[in-house]
């Protein structure tokens, strides 16, 4: 009975139910609006748990596939475009992460002070878009969802952000639009070169067909190899912008600084992960040989990201900027893990995606709490918050420690796996990169201690500690970070299944 449910579609469209209900609620009624939004985000979370239970961790193929022919073949092109969904070991954790962080963000929307109705509608639309990205098994469907996330995000930044929100929203749209354009070019190239289904002799955009054709050189007569390199590099740039990869990182800093905390939780927690996910899914899965060829470049960029972000984070005097550069730095670890290309490194990269998603969501939740109470996130204007807000300070310290890679928390596992992976392949680069681990401790502690330790400023004497609405997601995120750090096998056993493809290709 349960098996027959189209679970993925249910998860994908369940936030839209909330959107429908929200449409009928008067827009000044804050409480019911938020309650409905939170309840709606719980649906995919519950369904996600069911998905996890049904997921077959041993089987190394895509599961729960759903298909619906959407655009029927045109006579001239004989072209297929289908609604195809599926999950594997890489996308499943990301889907769960999305469901989880969306819920946390819905809680965190207590920080939003105006136009709640539109906010929640956009938030839920965004959630659907992200689910779609992680589930799509069709190139065009992926592209559509990828683009779809831009729209709600644009408004979320542009309406509820800080002073220079419009500029940040424009940066966001332009950078990501550019990335999407490049991605679209590659997708078209793929569809019209290897998107040819031999059995039905028709063009199709399905991921699996393209992948198997691209991996089989005998299918095509023309010289596909050089084209492949081009496509891989273009994909690297397209997803590198999203990741963000040095030197395409400027927009991320602006968004982190200007967007409202609840939105940054989603942005930094999940949206950035779409870049890495795309790189793994399309870059690595379709072009494994090119990925091996370009591994050194990737590793160098990764190390640059890691150190560059860390050094710049050290120089900032504003908490959001520090966290923005810290995100850039942490995405460097993902690149390093991917560059290693062995089982350890690749899993480390995915682990880092999840771990950083959780940690940065927690950190921005805290930013929201601090900013709401003190109206500032500049380090010189803050200090001694531990006196008035012990709970928040404790969680902040915890999040900072998790972010700098303290063992027994999830960040360490990811760091260890990625570094261990890279040490096998490129020990010198990895050794250079390890300096960043110290830098991470320096900038993170600097930020946390400057805000929580020391003397309380006079105007902050009457601050209150966190409310229940903030404490619930904080505790939940904290718990998951600890669980993953203490028992990482929980996650790696799933991820391993999704990585089998690449390690096999590389080994052979």
């Amino acid at each position: 009975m349960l098996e027959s449910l189209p679970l993925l579609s249910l998860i994908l469209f369940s936030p839209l139910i909330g959107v429908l209900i929200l449409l009928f609620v008067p827009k000044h009624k804050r409480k019911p609006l938020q309650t409905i939004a939170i309840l709606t985000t719980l649906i995919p979370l519950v369904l996600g748990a069911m998905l996890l239970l049904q997921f077959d961790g041993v089987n190394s193929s895509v599961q729960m596939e759903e298909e619906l022919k959407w655009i029927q073949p045109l006579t001239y092109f004989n072209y297929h475009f289908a609604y195809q969904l599926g999950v594997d070991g890489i996308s499943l954790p990301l889907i769960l992460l999305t469901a989880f962080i969306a819920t946390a963000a819905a809680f965190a929307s207590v920080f939003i002070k105006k136009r709640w109705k539109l906010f929640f509608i956009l938030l839920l639309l965004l959630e659907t878009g992200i689910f779609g990205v992680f589930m799509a098994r069709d190139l065009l469907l992926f592209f559509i969802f990828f683009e779809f996330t831009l729209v709600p995000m644009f408004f979320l930044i542009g309406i509820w952000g800080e002073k220079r929100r419009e500029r940040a929203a424009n940066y966001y749209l332009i950078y990501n639009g550019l990335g999407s354009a490049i991605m679209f070019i590659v997708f078209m190239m793929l569809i019209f070169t290897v998107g040819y289904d031999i059995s039905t002799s028709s063009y199709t955009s399905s991921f699996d067909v393209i992948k198997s054709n691209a991996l089989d050189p005998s299918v095509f007569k023309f010289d596909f190899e050089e084209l492949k390199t081009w496509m891989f590099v273009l994909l690297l740039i397209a997803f590198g912008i999203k990741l963000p990869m040095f030197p395409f990182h400027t927009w991320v800093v602006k968004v982190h600084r200007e967007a409202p905390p609840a939105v940054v939780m989603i942005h930094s927690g999940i949206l950035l992960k779409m870049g890495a996910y795309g790189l793994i899914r399309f870059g690595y899965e379709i072009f494994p040989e090119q990925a091996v060829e370009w591994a050194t470049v990737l590793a160098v960029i990764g190390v640059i990201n890691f150190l560059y972000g860390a050094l710049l984070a050290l120089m900032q005097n504003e908490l959001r900027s520090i966290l923005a550069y810290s995100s850039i730095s942490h995405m460097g670890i993902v690149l390093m893990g991917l560059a290693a290309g062995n089982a350890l490194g690749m899993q480390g990269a995915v682990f880092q995606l999840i771990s950083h998603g959780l940690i940065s969501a927690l950190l921005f939740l805290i930013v929201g709490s601090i900013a709401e109470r003190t109206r500032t996130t500049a380090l010189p204007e803050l200090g001694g918050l531990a006196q008035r807000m012990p709970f928040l300070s404790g969680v902040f310290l915890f999040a900072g420690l998790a972010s700098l890679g303290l063992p027994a928390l999830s960040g360490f596992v990811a760091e260890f796996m990625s570094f261990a992976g890279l040490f096998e392949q490129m020990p010198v680069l990895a050794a250079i990169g390890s300096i960043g681990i110290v830098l991470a401790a320096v900038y993170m502690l600097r930020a946390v201690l400057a805000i929580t330790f020391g003397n309380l400023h006079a105007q902050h004497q009457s601050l209150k500690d966190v409310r229940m609405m903030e404490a619930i997601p904080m505790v939940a995120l904290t718990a998951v970070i600890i669980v993953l750090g203490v028992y990482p096998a929980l996650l790696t056993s799933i991820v391993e299944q999704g990585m089998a493809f690449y390690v096999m290709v590389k080994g052979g």
Partner: protein
Amino acid sequence: MDFTISTYAWIIPLFPFVSFLILLVLGRQMKGIASTISIFAMLLATVSALLLLGETLKNEAQSYTSSVFNWLDIGDFSISFGYEVNNVNVLMLVIVTVVSLLVNVFSKGYMADDERMTVFYSYISLFTFSMLMLVISDNILQLYIFWELVGLCSFLLIGFWYQKKEAKAAAKKAFIVTRIGDIGLFIAVILLFWYMPEHMLSFTAIHNAFETNAHGFSDGMVTLVALLIFVGAVGKSGQFPLHTWLPDAMEGPTPISALIHAATMVAAGVFLVAKTYDIFLASETALLIVGTVGAFTALFAALIAIAQNDIKRILAYSTVSQLGYMMLALGLGTMAAYSAAMLHLFTHAFFKALLFLGAGSIIYALHHEQNILKMGGIGKSMKVTTWTFAIGTLALAGIFPLSGFWSKDAILAQAYEHQPVFFAAALIGVFLTAFYMSRLFFLVFTGDNRSGHTPKESPWVMTLPLIILAVLAVCAGWVAIPGIGTFNEWLVGETMEEKIHWSILIISNVVALLGIGLGYKMFRNKTASSLHEQSGNGLQTVLARKFYIDELYDLIVVKPVRGLGAFLQLWDEFIVGGLVKGSITTTRQIGKMGMRLQSGQMQVYALISVIGMLILLLIFAGRRLI
């Protein structure tokens, strides 16, 4: 089936962990109960550790290893978590639980006025848990994890009084400096992971692989791994050049200095080297470096200790120096020296904890005055503290027959046999140690009362731990009296031939007595006025400023990193940001050019299209012609 406690050794760390969880939930409430919970948990842990010790004493050299769960599965290999019980571990378990228990009791008095006592006890419980887990770890990755966690607790406790600027800076420094060392260990763990047969990281596997030479390492790689592990140990144990954090760490509450920064955590570095000793034995170079760093640190820190005026800082430098002795012994590369190092770790834990707690008792009585120049004359009013502190001082100086004597003598004897240079350094160190300790002792306990307070003896919760530790400081060394004690065989598991160097016994005692005598002569019965003349010559300034190491680091590490950061900041803003802005302006300019064509004059448009058509015509007609 025999009932063996070894198989249940994992329960010991659970006591403090449960206590930690309870206290965490309590938050800042229930001040009264907090200490009781923590002390009770520690009592249980101590009793179990002692039972375990009793068992290992009966069954000689039997070790028990068990892996509990797979932490990570990657492809065909996995990293598991487990625990190991062997004699070295049990020794450490006993040290940690006993000292932690006594410090817990002591803190009940010392921290009585602090409103965050519950938090304090929860940190101590977490620390004890992590330290015990570190001790019984069966593989090096697990050790690394708890290695970092004890570092975290140390950080939390140094910064316990978080409003204080110094405490904040010291906590940060402690975390970051030790983390530099930890990177070494981190890389070493990864290298071991890749080169060990079947990616085994357990200590047993390392032992077997290096003993039978069945590892995948080249000679250079062995040295590298050994040195990287040592870098970790240097960071944690405050050896030169990463020693700077330990004296600053004295900003934390004094019981913490006794527990973490004297007896247990800082000794973890020595413990780590001891646990992976087989790797060091495989590389002459690594051993030599370990020994040299140890010897240098022993002397260097002792020199600095002479010129310090903060009672806790003197003890901190003394700790650094004594840890140097242990490293020196480990650098000798014999099993006898190894066991001497562990013996010194064992005895040092007790007498240094005693000294710190004694210092705590004084500081408590003087309302947090720490400058020894402002103390004096305490001996009359605080009898228990004075006598126990005296025992600690003598034990540290290495006077017969206190515990410090036996362990230091064992190290000296081994150094004499294998490395005369180290022996000379160690002997000078003995003199310096005796001298700075007697300076401390006589300035604090004799002479005029310069503090402006009237000291009162501390309550019994504080003096009781002092007395117990004093007893231990006297007796702990007797387990290894040459010819009588069986510590070495018990620890190493093999009988070794022991020569008793009577000459060294006598020389070291004489040297130590000389040091004490000099200190007595110079610092006995000082009055407030006589101290002012002391303001120093050049050498004393250098010593008082700790050889300018902090300033040097600021110059060669902190400043360049900041400079690089500032440069990158500009780079990011102007070059990277400039590129972005540049592309924006270019696009705008292209747009403007198009706008200029758009004049709104229909006639111009028409003219342009006519010209365009003419050009097309010319092209097509021209083509035809050619």
